[in-house]
């Protein structure tokens, strides 16, 4: 029978909050990657360029 990784991880986490440390690393790594990507993508008029991008991806 295949392991349900969501349940497996949640069961582990429930008994061992040290696992939160790994979760923090994952979340912050993703945020840093995203910030680095977008800081290089737009020029001086950040908001205008960001809005153009957001329109393209359907978020605006």
């Amino acid at each position, binding site marked *: 029978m295949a392991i*349900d990784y*969501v*349940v497996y*991880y*949640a*069961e582990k*986490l*429930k*008994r*061992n*909050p040290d*696992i*939160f*440390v*790994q*979760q*923090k690393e*994952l*979340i*912050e790594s*993703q*945020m840093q990657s*995203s*910030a680095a990507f*977008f*800081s290089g993508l737009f020029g001086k008029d*950040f*908001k205008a360029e*960001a*809005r153009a*991008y*957001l329109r393209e991806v359907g*978020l*605006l």
Partner: protein
Amino acid sequence: MPMGKAYSLEKDVLVIHRELTQLDLFVRDFVEVLRKHIAYLIVSGFVSIAAGRSRGTEDVDVLIPAVDSATFTLLFEELSGRGFWCYQGDTAKGVYPYIQELAHIRFARANQVFPNVECIPITSEKKAQYFEFRHPQKMRIKDFEFNIPPLEFEILYKEIILGGEKDLADAKHLRTVFSDILKRERFKEFEPVVRSHGH
């Protein structure tokens, strides 16, 4: 704090035993402004992530009341002053029509696009959302205390209304982590309310 447990219930506040992440700090800074002006409820992905679900998110969904123009203007101006920009516009006057139309608006930190807070205006006509809005559960991580829906409601909403792969995994995570405190009678009580979504 009891050792070896991911959370505890302290005077009805769900206390999560972990350090704050950068995502938490972003949400905390936003909510600090929001709560000075209006009531709010953080829903969906951030609730699961706050409770340890190991995934990233670009949006933090927050229910807000469809407030009057004067209240919105004060909120918008303080958010702008605290370094948040709004995708939909740079002035309260320009963005307020979105609130009137119950359209979502998003805020991110200056010079960033993600993560963003997606504000979802609601009125009493949105029965399910209005119900959860009026029955907040407090969650706390370190010094950051915030409002979320009752856990049973959040789980059912993800399972019945949202239903995507990510949502079902979030619901499973919440069911597993909080299995000691979830109440069957509350699932029964909330299910018809959740199913009234959209009516």
